C-alpha cells in the first residue's frame, strides 16, 4: 500500500531541528521524499506499523504534527501531479 506522510516539526529549538532530521531519516527508510515535508512510502502492513511506531516515538506531540494518509490503489489513477515531480517508481526497472 502507498502511504503519504506529511509533517510539521517545530524547529525553533535545536532539539526541534534534531527531531526534523530524524523524522526525515525514518521516512527515507520506508519511502521517498516527494516534497520538502511530504513522503510517499510503499509498505506492507508490518512495515507500516513500524514506520508509525518510529515516527510517533520521535515527534513531540505538544509541538509537532504528523499525518499519515493511505493512498487508494492504484496510485497512478488516484494521484494528479503538476510541476516538478521527483517520484521514482521503485518497482520499475532500476538501472543506473
Amino acid at each position, binding site marked *: 500500500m502507498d502511504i503519504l506522510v506529511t509533517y510539521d516539526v517545530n524547529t525553533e529549538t535545536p532539539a526541534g531541528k534534531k527531531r526534523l532530521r530524524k523524522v526525515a*531519516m525514518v521516512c*527515507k*527508510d*520506508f*519511502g*521517498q521524499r516527494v516534497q520538502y515535508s511530504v513522503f510517499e*512510502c*510503499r*509498505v506492507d502492513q508490518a*512495515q507500516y506499523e513500524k514506520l508509525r511506531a518510529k515516527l510517533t516515538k520521535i515527534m513531540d506531540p505538544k509541538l509537532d504534527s504528523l499525518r499519515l494518509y493511505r493512498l487508494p490503489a492504484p496510485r497512478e489513477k488516484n494521484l494528479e501531479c503538476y510541476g516538478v515531480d521527483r517520484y*521514482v517508481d*521503485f*518497482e*520499475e*526497472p*532500476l*538501472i*543506473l
Partner: protein
Amino acid sequence: MKPILNTLYIQTQGSYLRLDHETLKVEVEREMVFQIPLHHLRSIVVFGNVLVSPFLLHRCAEDGRDVVWLSEYGRFHARLNGPTTGNVLLRQAQYAVLNDPGQTLEIARLMVAGKLQNARTVLKRAAREGKGSPDQGSLNEAAEAQADGIRRAEQASDLDVLRGIEGSAARAYFAAFSGMIRLNRDVFGFTERSRRPPRDPVNALLSLAYALLSNECVAACESVGLDPQVGFLHALRPGRPALALDLMEELRAPLADRLVLTLINRNQIKPDDFVDRPGGGIYLTETARKTFLAAYQKRKQEEITHPVLNSKIPYGLIAHIQARLLARYLRGDLPCYQPFLFR
C-alpha cells in the same frame, strides 16, 4: 505468494553503493544520485568497477539479499553468499537422490524433456509467425528434431546417452535459430553458439541473458534450501552450480532466447549497439545494455499461467516455483518432478 521484489542494476563505472540506515545510497563522484529503501530490493547486480561498502554487504548477507558481481560486459564473477541456511533435511534428501542412479536419471530425463519441449514450442511459434517465409521449413524441421529427442530421451539408458541426445537437439535448435530472426539479419546472423567471448551480436545477447538467468536459478535453489551445486543432469564440478544449471535448461528458450529475439525483431536492439573488444569478443554498449536490462526486468513482471499450479504468476517467479516443485519431489511429497512447460 511472495511479491517479486526488484533488482537494482548498477552499471555506471566508478559508482559507490553504501548503506544509510535502512536505505541503499548510490554515489557517483561523491554525489548522491539515488536512494532506495532496502525493503524494495531482492537483489543487487553490479557491472565492473562498482564499489559496495562492507556494511551494505554485511546487511545483504544477513537479510539473504543477493549481490552479484558481473564484469563490465556481463560475465559472471562472483555472488555474495551468506551463512548456510535452509533445510538440512531437504539437502540430505537431495544428496540421497544423487546417489541413486535410477532416480537421478529420471529427474534428468524430465528436465531434458522439458527443455526440448520448450525449444520446440518456441520454434513452432516462430514457424507459425513466419508463415510463407523460406525459414518455415527449417524451423519445422528443427522442431521435429526436438520432438524426436524427447522420444529418445524416454529410452535413454544412462546419463551420458541422455546428455548426447540433449546435445544433438541443442545443435539442431541453434542451427535453425537464425530463422527466427526477422530484422537486420545481415548483422544478427547466427550460426553457432560461441561464448567466452561471444563472437557475434546474437551470442553477446544470449550470453548476457543466460548470465542473468543462471544467477536467478542459483538464487531460486538457495531460497528454497536446495544446494545449488548438487545437480542431476549436469555433472558435478567444483564451483559449478550444477542444480541451478539443471533448472535453467527448461527456461532458456522461453525466458532468455525469446527475449533476445523480441529485442532484435522489434528493433529495440540495433546493429550499432555493439562494440568489438580485444580478443575477438563482441559486447553490448552501455546504453544497449540498459535497454536490455529494462526489457528483462519488464519481462519478469509479465504474467503467465503456470501449467502445474494452474494460476497466474510473473515470469520472474518461474525459477522459484520450479525449485520448489523439485524440493517437494525430493522430499517425497510429489510423485515426480514436473518441468515447466511453456505454451
